[in-house]
């Protein structure tokens, strides 16, 4: 693969996985010349109509229709889809809301919470709609590579990228897998 084109997206997560990627520090100097980072929250991209990519990377779970749309488009546009972090792999901390009906959730957050006065549930058509449940990426689109961890260690992220650069589908060794 010659300078594979990579797109990363940040869905329902905390950006910790991207931070962990940046946490590779000087090792980034070795990785970056080998890749072309076409879309990424790091580059502050605003368009979600992705260009074709070799590798798509998703951080975060899927909790609303916009995120679902992004995940589907990215899947269509890339050859290898990577799930970064516990949210993308398992659903993560976002799934704490999975036992609360979305209507109850919204009315609690925007109307009933003790610190809210005269609140209203935002209903602009521009806003994405919550899904009934937050789901890990692989329950909605096919995922090829999993890098669990909250966040995954910089080492695990670097390892998985390097393996892809070498043309292999990486499977993390047990020592690099952790769920917290």
């Amino acid at each position: 693969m010659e300078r594979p084109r990579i797109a990363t997206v940040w869905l329902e997560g905390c950006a910790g996985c991207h931070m962990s990627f940046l946490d590779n520090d000087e090792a980034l100097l070795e990785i970056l010349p080998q890749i072309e980072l076409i879309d990424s929250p790091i580059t502050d991209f605003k368009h979600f109509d992705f260009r074709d990519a070799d590798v798509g990377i998703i951080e975060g779970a899927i909790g609303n229709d916009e995120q679902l749309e992004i995940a589907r488009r990215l899947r269509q546009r890339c050859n290898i889809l990577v799930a970064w972090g516990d949210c993308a792999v398992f659903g993560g901390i976002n799934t704490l809301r999975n036992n609360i009906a979305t209507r109850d959730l919204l009315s609690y957050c925007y109307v009933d919470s003790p610190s809210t006065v005269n609140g209203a549930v935002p209903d602009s058509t521009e806003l994405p709609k919550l899904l009934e449940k937050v789901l890990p990426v692989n329950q909605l689109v096919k995922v090829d590579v999993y890098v669990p961890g909250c966040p995954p260690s910089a080492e695990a992220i670097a390892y998985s990228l390097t393996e892809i650069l070498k043309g292999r589908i990486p499977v993390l060794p047990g020592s690099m897998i952790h769920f917290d």
Partner: protein
Amino acid sequence: METNTEKVKIVLDGRECRVDKGLTVLEATRQNGIHIPTLCHHPAVSAWGGCRMCVVEIDGSPRLAASCVTPVRDGMEVVTSNERITESRRLILEFLFSERNHNCMFCSQSGECELQDMAYDLQMDHLSVFSSFDEFPVDITNEYMGLDHNRCILCGRCVRACAEITGAHVLDFTSRGPNTLIGFDLNETRENSTCFKCGVCMEVCPTGAIYNRLRTHSAVTGHSKEAWESIDSVCPLCGLLCPTTSTVCDNTLLTVESSALGDVSRADRGQLCRRGRFEVLESPGERVFDPMIKDDAGRWAKTDWENALGHVAEILNHMRDTHGGGSIFGLVSSMCANENLMLFRDLMTRAWSAGYVDTFDGNCWRNILNARDKTALQIREMSVDSISEADFILVIGEHAFESHPVVPAIINKKVLDKEAEVAVVGSGDFHMPQINYRLPVGEEDIEATVRAMLKKVLTLIRPAVSSLELKKFQAAGRQIDSAEILEEQGLDQKELGDFDEIARNFAKAASPLVLIGARSNGIQGAPGLKDAIRLAFARNTGSGRLPLIIFKPFGNSAGAWKLGAASPVPPPAHAGWKAGLVMAANGETPGRMVADNFDMLEFLAVFSPFFPKGALGKKANVILPVPLWMEEDGSYTSMDGREVIFKKRVLDAPANVKDSRKAMIALAEKAGVPLEHHDLNELQEKTRVLIIEE
């Protein structure tokens, strides 16, 4: 080495091995150094074959077999690991993870979880099945243990441990299928159930389902498990001196677990109790880190050891020289190690010829002495392990096992296994759901009830060893109508029937045993102690030991009494004490008879890890900080007084807290009367000899 056990030949991963017949495949592989992952299996409880993590391939069969429940067979060929087996194990693991909420990032057990470790080992980097996200309840009704059903994998280890190790049978599965939950009794909360909070379920739980509320997140980053240290010691909170393994990190006690869990050769099968597992993680008071002197305004001020010891020695010397040794008293806790007890006794008598030296539980000792004199019997007790052999157990005393929570569990298991019957004389809580006979008489009626019982028993048997005393009783007993005595105490018709049954069964049992509760042998007197001892004597086999165990209030009461740290006479009513020295270990408070004499005190020094409370705190002028029991090596005496058990130090004492023995030796030097024992090993040997060769 050839043994008598029959051997079979099996092939493990291509290697021929000879193993004992009757082993399971799992046991055989472990003996041969082959690792097979397990979840529902725990060496301390019976095999169950529930989780299927331990599957292996046997004789090339297409159906994998659970190795924990498959016995070895001659010629068997076992493959413990290949792609198919690993795939199967990983899929099972994914099912377990997807069934409930096993998100490690918000689990307090993360870092110390067998389920998590296994996922890492098997490289489970995602779930290929859908997660259920169903919500299950959490039981945090108990202050020590939480039960989060969302983390439960229904391996049933807790259910088996609760039944097989403690004999409590409180835990079991409730409901069915995906709604199955671990339940207490008939769907009670933990707090309201008959659970006595021993924590054995928590010790065997492989996940964060049953967790220690006092030590959540103890395996988080920064406290990585690599830095954890395991130290084997014993728990001196009561005379059972249970063997423990303490986990320590950064000089902090993380957990206390049993070091003999499931050991069937022990009467208690290696269980611990609420006190030894949880109470030790809490501090009973405010810690003292430096020697303290009270100023004129009654406030504590820090000082150094030199000054504090000099001050105490000077005042006690002065009191001795002006008012005589009779004006000085000493009081020591029976939770202290043998060495400390002997040094304290020597310090008080040699340095200041103290008029009165006693232990906090001296009254119990005097009650026993009194009973010995009155009955003219040698009171040589059985060991706690002898409960194993008993077939009829007579428990005497109110709340008999309050301070020894493991004992009811031992008895309960025997009753459930139909190895023994148990009768209780006394009211209160016994934590025994299975009591065969019960006479719920109040503290004040125990004496008369036990006396009536003795008379009744003596009409039924001729003791193997007779004494004048018993003969006298026997003659008198024939004329006394026990029923009349008992009716006066308000026992109903059923209880009167029970009374007769108890007497009859006690009289005819092959190995009866009398257990006297710590409280009944207690500070406020010992109702029925004499007659209980006579009862035991009536069934004496002449082996030199009475079928009797007297439970003692503190962890080293037997040692304290044997080493002469307790006074044979009670504190005089108007002792006229001017000064005193106290050694406390765990926030003890003196009894009323001692405290009544505090009015005239001019000076009181206290060795203690904590700021003393109550009368001690009010009167103390100097506090000399000493280590906690877990911060100091020491030897302890078993409750029957026959064995000396070494307690290893688990934690380091704070910097300015002085080893109690060194502190006492230094104080004696300041007082100008050096003690003869400086070498601690020598001291240990001396106390050991004194205790063993009574």
